Each structure stands twice: as C-alpha cells, then as structure tokens.
C-alpha cells in the first residue's frame, strides 16, 4: 500500500532541486538578484502560484495547441478573412503583430533570465513556465496572422518595423526598459503591473474586438491563451506579495516601481485606446468604459488588498481619470496626421462612428474632437488629405509624440522639461518626467526616432529615404485606408461598390 503524498508536498519534491553550492560561491552562481536593494530573508516562504509538473504542462499545452492549430487551418482553408466586419478592422491586428507580438518574445527572454537567475527555485520554475508560454504566444500570433499577411498589407515586415518605426518605439522602449531592469523590478513591471493590473486593458480589447468583428482565428487564440494568462496573473501577484512580506524596506522600492510601471504601461495602452475607439468597426466597449471597469474598479479593489502592506494607488491616478475622456481621440489624431510614416491605415470616422463616440464621450467628443475630425474629413473628401511632413517632438520617456493636453485644460498641450548633463529632455507629462528624473542615466540613452532620423541614422534625409529604410511598400503599408490596396481588394472580394474590375491589387 503506497504512502500518499499530497499535491503540495509532491510538487515541492518535483521542484525544490537546488543545493547550496560550495565549489563556486552562491553569489557568483546567482549574481543578479541582490543589486536592486530588495531584501529576501527566506526564499522558502515563496508560495507556488500554480503547481504544474512538466508532464502535465506538456499534456495540457499540447492539447490546446492541437485544437488551436486546427482552427487556424480551417480559418485559412475557408478564407476566414472574408467574414470579418470590414477591412479596416485588420489594422488592429497589424498594430498587434507589429507592437505586441514582439513584446511576447521579449517576455519569453525576460522570464527565461529570471527563470535562471532568481535564487529561489519555486520562483525560477514559475518564471520558466511563463517563459515557455510567452514563446507560445509570439509564435501562435505570428502563425495566426500569417494568413492575414497573405491578403493584407502592413503585416509583412513586422520584426524589421518593430526595431525602427517611430510609433513602435513606444512598446519597444517599454519592454527594453523592463528587460534591462533587475529581476525584481522586471517582476513588478511585467509580472505584476502589466500581466496582472493592465492585462485586461490589452488582451480584452483585442480579443473581444476580434470576436465582435468576426475574426475567429484571433478570438480562438484569445480563448486558448486565457488559461496561460491566468497563471501569469497569479505569478505576478505572488511576486509582489513575496517581496512585500519579506522585508519592510522593500515596500518603498516596490511602491516606486508600481508607480513607474503602471504609468509606463498606461502610456503603451494609449495606442490600444485609439485602436478600440477608432479601428474597430464594431466596438465591444469604449476605452473610457474599459478603463473604468478594469482599472478604476478592479484595480481599486486590488489596491485595497495591498493597503495592508502600505501600498497605495499611484498619485497620478487622478490624471488618468481626467485623461480617459481624451486619450483615444488625441492618439488617433496623432496617428492620423503621421500615417504617411506608419505601417497602418488610418481614416476619419463616418457619421455612425462619430455618433457612437458622442454617446460614449458625451462631455468631450462633440466639444473638442468632432469639429476637428469633421474638418479633416471634409478636407480629405475634397482631395486635401493632410499628411504631416515634419517630425514631431517625442516624449523622452514614453516616446509618444507630444500631443497630449494638460489634465485640466484640453486646449493646452502639456510640456515638461528636465536638464541632465547640460542637455534638455522633453516630456509629455509629470509622471514621465518623474520617471526620467529618478534614473536620468538610464533614460538619456533612449533611442529617439526623430532625433535618430535627424542624425541621419534612418536611411538619410527626408521622408522617402526614411520610408525606404523602414522597408515600407509605399502607398500600400502606409497612408489613409481610403484609396489603399487593402480597400480595393476588400471591395473586390466582397463585390462592393467601388471595386476595381480585374485582378487583385498587389502592393
């Protein structure tokens, strides 16, 4: 009769495999987890956020992959892209593949590093599993979008673009920032702030957007990744709990990281806000509604739980509350103006969409944005579609062009400046300036697209040289949706008005 082992004990035996090294000193074997100042008294106090041995992992994940790839194959075989609401929708996917999928890869590498370098074995194993999951996500996303790439522009050089194109510097610098930080800061940045607090603001808009717009391939990925994401959330929460309970000196460090990373994440999500409110032909909810549900309500409850450790809601939360009325409109305006240098299409909303925006933003849309957008639409219809030919000033921290307004005055652009080593650095907001001011020696190195272009590091002088350096197919990857090959092909496939007779328009 076999002795019984409970799950918890059994899992410990399956993962606590380390030993105190003696032929090489422990601090040489684990050189990275002490320099940030986080004090760990006892790694044994780490509570496993989930208990999955490798055989179970292979079994469940293999099963999920089998199903997901079957759906992707069926989607391709049946030309599933013809069932989406409208070809404008595809731009949300372009943004995802260019801006988010490379971050999944970055997460894979970041969690691999922590999965090797945390001294505690339980934390290592959990990070290793997340590292594998993130590899799954980047690869399944590339595979899922592979079909769209065959029929639409704006997908085909995503990796090249991610390293170069100005608006992709926003997500790239975010993850470079996290991956160049120490292991504990990485866990607060990605494990907690991004995967736990903000994930619903990234994942849900894209996946619900896919569901609302008939994209069964992407929505299947979303469902399939859900259980992975649930594991990632529990890891992020455990990492925070562990740091806070290990030593009271950790609390102010963790608080500063939470403040920094929720803001960094929030600024990345401003791209998502524009996607939600403007790119989706059928919108499941507005950015403002999503912010209220997922940050103000759910995040509020979380911070109530963390209050017992002395953790408080970042004091800039009030700025976000004010900005939720403006964010998506301002970002869409920036993207619209700079579409000549972007691998997405933009357009001005039609009347139905404008009315939806009025309804969702009763206090701001009609007052500040509708008149502007209607004017731009009229101009475009009269053949004067405006494309900015100049380079914008970009925030040194979040790298978004400085088009945001003062929290209390939506008619005044918000500018902040710091000086460091005799140079001036520009910021879009107080929190972005504060992040720089705390670590100027890090943020002064940021690879700033406009400055790099002016220095001649992006193909040469003038927009055409830069776009060639970007490897854009001109007039296909960039510019307005109206008049694009995407539009022409869509009309042709769907037999819609304005379809050009003849063959598919190749870019």
């Amino acid at each position, binding site marked *: 009769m076999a002795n019984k*082992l409970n799950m918890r004990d059994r899992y410990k*035996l399956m*993962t606590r*495999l*380390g*030993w*105190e*090294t003696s*032929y*090489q000193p422990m601090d040489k*074997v684990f050189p990275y987890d002490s*320099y940030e100042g986080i004090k760990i008294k006892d790694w044994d106090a780490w509570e496993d956020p989930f208990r999955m041995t*490798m*055989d179970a*992992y*292979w*079994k469940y*994940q*293999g099963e999920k*992959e089998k199903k*997901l790839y079957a759906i992707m194959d069926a989607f391709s075989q*049946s030309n599933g892209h*013809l069932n989406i609401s409208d070809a404008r929708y595809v731009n949300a996917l372009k943004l995802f593949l260019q801006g988010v999928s*490379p971050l999944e*890869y970055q997460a*894979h*590498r970041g969690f*691999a*590093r922590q*999965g090797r370098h945390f001294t505690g074995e339980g934390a290592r*194993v959990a990070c*290793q*599993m997340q590292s594998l999951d993130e*590899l*799954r996500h*980047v690869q*399944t996303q*590339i595979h899922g979008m592979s079909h769209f*790439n*065959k*029929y639409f522009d704006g997908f*085909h*050089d995503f*990796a090249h673009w991610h*390293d*170069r194109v100005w608006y992709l510097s926003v997500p790239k*610098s975010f993850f*470079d*920032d996290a*991956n*160049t930080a*120490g*292991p504990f800061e990485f866990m607060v940045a990605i494990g907690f702030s991004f995967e736990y607090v903000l994930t619903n603001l990234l994942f849900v808009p894209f996946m619900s957007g896919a569901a609302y717009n008939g994209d069964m391939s992407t929505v299947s990925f979303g469902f399939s990744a859900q259980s992975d994401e649930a594991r990632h959330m529990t890891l992020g929460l455990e990492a925070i709990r562990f740091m806070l309970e290990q030593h009271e000196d950790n609390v102010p460090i963790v608080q500063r990281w939470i403040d920094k990373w929720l803001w960094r994440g929030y600024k990345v999500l401003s791209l998502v806000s524009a996607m939600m409110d403007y790119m989706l032909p059928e919108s499941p909810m507005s950015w403002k509604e999503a912010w209220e549900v997922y940050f103000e309500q759910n995040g509020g409850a979380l911070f109530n739980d963390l209050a017992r450790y002395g953790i408080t809601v970042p004091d800039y939360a009030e700025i976000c509350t004010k900005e939720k009325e403006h964010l998506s409109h301002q970002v869409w305006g920036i993207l619209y103006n700079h579409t000549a240098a972007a691998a997405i299409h933009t357009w001005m909303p039609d009347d139905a969409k404008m009315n939806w925006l009025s309804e969702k933003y009763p206090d701001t849309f009609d007052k500040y944005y509708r008149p502007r957008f209607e004017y731009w639409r009229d101009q475009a219809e009269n053949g004067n579609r405006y494309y900015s030919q100049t380079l914008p000033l970009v925030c040194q921290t979040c790298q978004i062009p400085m088009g945001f307004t003062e929290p209390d005055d939506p008619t005044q652009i918000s500018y902040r400046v710091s000086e460091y080593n005799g140079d001036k650095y520009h910021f879009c907001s107080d929190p972005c300036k504060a992040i720089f001011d705390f670590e100027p020696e890090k943020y002064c*190195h940021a*690879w700033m697209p406009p400055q790099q272009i002016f220095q001649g590091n992006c193909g040469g002088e003038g927009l055409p040289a830069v776009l060639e350096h970007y490897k854009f197919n001109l007039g296909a990857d960039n510019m307005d949706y109206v008049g694009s090959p995407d539009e022409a*092909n869509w009309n042709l496939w769907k037999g819609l008005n304005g379809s050009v007779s003849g*063959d*598919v*328009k*190749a870019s």
Partner: protein
Amino acid sequence: MQIDIKAKEVKPIRHTYSHIARRFGEDKPATRYQEAVLDVQAVDNFHYRPTWQPDKELYDPTRTAIIMEDWYSFLDPRQYYYGTYTMARAKQQASADQSFKFVEKRNLLDQIPTDVKQTILDYVVPLRHYEWGANMNNYQICAMGYGAAITSAAAMHGADRLGNAQYITRIALALSDNDTSVLDNALAGWTDKTQWQGLRKLVEDSLVVQDWFELFVAQNLVMDGLVMMLFFEKLEAQLVAAGASTYAMLTEFIVDWHAESMRWVDKQISVAISESEANADLLNGWFAQWTDAAQGALAPLADALFDNGSEVISSITESLKSRAAKAGVSV
C-alpha cells in the same frame, strides 16, 4: 473519383513575411517552423543598457566568443516550435505515464533485488540535481544567447531537463513507496559523498561559465554525452542484468529524449564549426577542456559502479569523441 468542391478563389498578394522572403531570395510559402523562429528577436536600436550587464546591449552577439554571419543558421533539425514541441512531448509523456502505471499497478518494482534498488537510489537518483543544473544552464543559454532559433530550442531543452529531474524523482518515489527520505539521502549523497563531488564541482563550475556557447558545448555535448552514456547505457545494462528490467521501463522517456536531443545538439555544433576556423578552434578547445574535466569528475562514480571503471570511462569518452568528430570537432 474526385469530388470538386467549389470555393470562392481569392488570390493571396504574398506568401510569407518579407524578412523570410529576403532569406529565401523570393516570395514563396514558408513552413510554420520558419515563420515561428526566423528573425523574431530584436537586433537593432536598443533603448537602454542592461543594468545587470551594462557593458552589453540587451541582445548582444558578443556574449560568446564565436562569431556567426547569420545567427539563424542554428536551425533545429526537429523543427520544433512551441506547438510541435509540446505535442511531441505530450505523446512521450503519455507513454511514460502508461509505463509508470503499469509498473506501479503490478508492484513490479518489488521484483528488483534490494541491493539493486539501493544502487539506483544511491547512484541514479542524485542525478535529479544534475538535471537541475542542466535546466539552469539551458535557461542561461536562452537568456543570454543570440537569435531566436537557438535560444527558443534551449528553452525547450531546459524545460526537458526539469522534466527529466521530475521523472527521476518519480522513480525514487516509486522505488521507496513514497518515502521521501530517499530524496533527502540522494541530496546528501550529491552534496557530501566523495564519489559525487567531482560531478557536483563540474556542474557548479558550469554554472558560472560566462560564454553561452561554451556552456552549450560543456553541458549539452560533453557533460550530457558522458553522463547519459554512463548512467543510462552502461549502468542501466548492469542493473537490468541484475534484475532491474522494470526500472528500464521507467527511464525510457529520458533515454528516448536523449537520442532525440542529440540530433539538435550535434547540429548546432556542426553549424558553429563549419562557420569559420576561428569558431572551430574555440569549439575544439572547449570540447577538449570540458571532456578532460568531465572524465576526471566521473571517474570515482565509474569506479564505485563497475569492476572496470576506468575502462568504462575510456569507452564512453571514445564514443563521445567519435560522435563529436562526426559533428566536425577535431578530437
């Protein structure tokens, strides 16, 4: 007879991603493996210096001394991306699980003579710590390596090593009727018993190797090459002859896994060596140095396990050398 299903024909405007088409020299369909790994890692315009290694870029080809014109030459002959990898391992684990159930249900391990059981507990079970070291080293290769082709495969290989450690743990628990003290004893053997100290020192020395490709040679070619042969060929044959054939059912996962993984390991070695003479010199040096150290480290274990320990060590070293020579190493 053929049935023609009429479907709307919609012509694609391209067949794969441009970074892949540039590698092909033309736009043609790519495999899922190719799309999953090629050029997936960022290579240019990093924003900040790593606070944990400020003299390098975030992804930096100079974390190893070898130099490659194209880091995506390190392709995987198994063409593993996450999907094919997990589906393959899921199948293998199902069959391993079947074996464990079969053996446990019939109490087949009771047939193994006590002294043979003890040999397994003393001389195989401590390898769960060896596998843990191998897990760490492969995640190090993933974290510090360059190019998504070799680093993604290293992550899977690292996960495999955790799996191996867990299968060894299961064997120990099955042999002892879930008496967890056998694991404590195995740890004590690993940390304190004279015979294990050579191997433990070798593992600890590998944990501080800075050059990730040297680490690849040390761990995945040399140390694994010798350790797998010593314990899962030579010792296993001796154990089976002494009445432990059911035990061999439980190591099947590890044995099959090693046979499969060698294809990947040897391919990476041959790619690095055939790139340049400078690379070949480095690999030859690393191979010689680590083989020398590993031979010495394993000698006390071989002496404890075999009447002709030194012959066993020579024979497995010769096998490793001929395997390495096939991959291009000058031995």
